[in-house]
């Protein structure tokens, strides 16, 4: 049987559901053909720009550099079109958490895992302040418009692909290595409640304006995981999360196949 081709336009909260470390069997049915990594929708629909390679040096690995260049040059559209995924799964992590900054008359994601590690960022730090939903909630209409522009673009360029929005929330507690449930506490995590309220507002507005297919993960309470391979964070969930996501997504694909 042919595998369903999936593209993830989002962050680890979605991408890790298509990772054998978390869902060992996912490749039986799915192939993750493309990842547009941690890019804000505002950046994704902005015009391409250029930053010289020698300015992009820094403590980035090859993958991080490749994703950063894609974000700057807006190469993701070409990538998605050439790979023709059956499903494009989106999440709003980058818009909530990272935000954007102006770079050479365009807009780029202010990503601490890529742009912010470069010499270019260090040199221009003062004029590259990040505007995210968390620090500027008034930006919500722009993010919303960018999100709609992106899905319209996908519908036009990839009419056979289906866009799915992953509705997630940050969690406020985690399982520690002793198996105890512990709250995320301290200033580092003070954003959780605000971020969730923003995300829910965002989801509500999207769904009231457009008929967008979703995988809604909010009806169950999930904990974070201290043993998560990529570190302890309010969006690095216990294994049940990725398993439930794949189950829900599989059902959605199955329903689509039956109705096509």
């Amino acid at each position, binding site marked *: 049987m042919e595998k369903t081709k999936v593209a993830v336009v989002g962050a680890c909260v979605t991408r890790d559901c298509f990772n054998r470390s978390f869902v060992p069997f996912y490749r039986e049915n799915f192939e993750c053909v493309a990842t547009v990594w941690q890019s804000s929708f505002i950046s994704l629909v902005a015009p391409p720009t250029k930053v010289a390679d020698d300015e992009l040096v820094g403590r980035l690995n090859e993958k991080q550099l490749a994703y950063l260049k894609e974000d700057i040059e807006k190469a993701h559209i070409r990538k998605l079109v050439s790979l023709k995924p059956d499903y494009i799964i989106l999440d709003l992590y980058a818009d909530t958490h990272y935000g954007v900054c102006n770079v050479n008359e365009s807009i780029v994601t202010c990503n601490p895992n890529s742009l912010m590690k470069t010499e270019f960022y260090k040199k221009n730090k003062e004029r590259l302040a990040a505007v995210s939903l968390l620090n500027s909630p008034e930006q919500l209409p722009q993010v919303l418009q960018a999100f709609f522009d992106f899905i319209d673009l996908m519908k036009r360029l990839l009419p056979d692909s289906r866009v799915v929005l992953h509705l997630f*929330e940050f969690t*406020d*507690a985690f399982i520690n290595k002793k198996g*105890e*449930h*512990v*709250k995320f*506490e301290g200033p580092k995590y003070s954003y959780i*409640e605000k971020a969730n*309220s923003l995300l829910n507002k965002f989801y509500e507005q999207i769904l009231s304006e457009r008929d967008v297919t979703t995988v809604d993960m*909010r*009806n*169950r*309470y*999930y*904990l974070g995981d201290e043993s998560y391979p990529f570190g302890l964070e309010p969006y690095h969930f216990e294994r049940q999360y990725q398993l439930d996501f794949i189950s829900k997504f599989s059902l959605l694909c199955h329903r689509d196949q039956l109705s096509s």
Partner: protein
Amino acid sequence: MKVGIIGSEATRGIFIFNAYDVSFYKTEIISYQTTTVSNVAGPVKNAVDFSAYSTWDRMIVENNLNKVWPQRLQGFAPEVVVVDFVSDVMYTSVQHDGSIVTRNPIMLKHLKDDLVDRTRIFSDEDDFVSGWLVACKRLVDTVREICPKALVVLHSAPLMNSYIDKEGIPRKVRRDDYDAKSTLLKRINSEGECMFDAVIKSDPFKFHGHELHPWGVGLAKYENKYNTHMLGLFANKVLEAKFERSE
């Protein structure tokens, strides 16, 4: 050990739904589901006939109208008084008949026409906290005056944003007012701590509510695991205080 409760289901549940044997503790409700501001206000002007009320309803309404909790405290003479502030954020305080009373479900059941349209006495959070701090101090001072030997303990109760459903699956509580109430409760718990002899709190551990809780799902109706954990902390604090006092 005699334990008086000035609070809500959050504290009462600890001494009822517990994996440990709770028979060692003889608990008595001194004031229930009543705001601190209401507890320290004067009585209402006009007498009310409680003869048709059930015992439970009378316990709550009579205290709210006539402020009888100090007499109850004196009569029971507890060795420990446990206070929680869940009612302060779950219900509002309103003016009524020359006093301040709590607009909680039992009060509304009996005095709906008098209370339903009353505006709350505090306009915003800062106004609330400053009024509450004065009331809290007065409440604790009154407790100490009546029971000078009693250990006065704050149960720094949290509101739960999750519960375990009948199938054992954790679910999120969806309430628009949860964040605001939870933040306010954290704030007053923290600001009130210094007034008490001891504080019991579940931090940093995370607990849930439970759909099979005999009182149903609620923000302050905790799973037994919480109650067991808190009773352990409570016993420790009481022992610690006894030890300190005997030294």
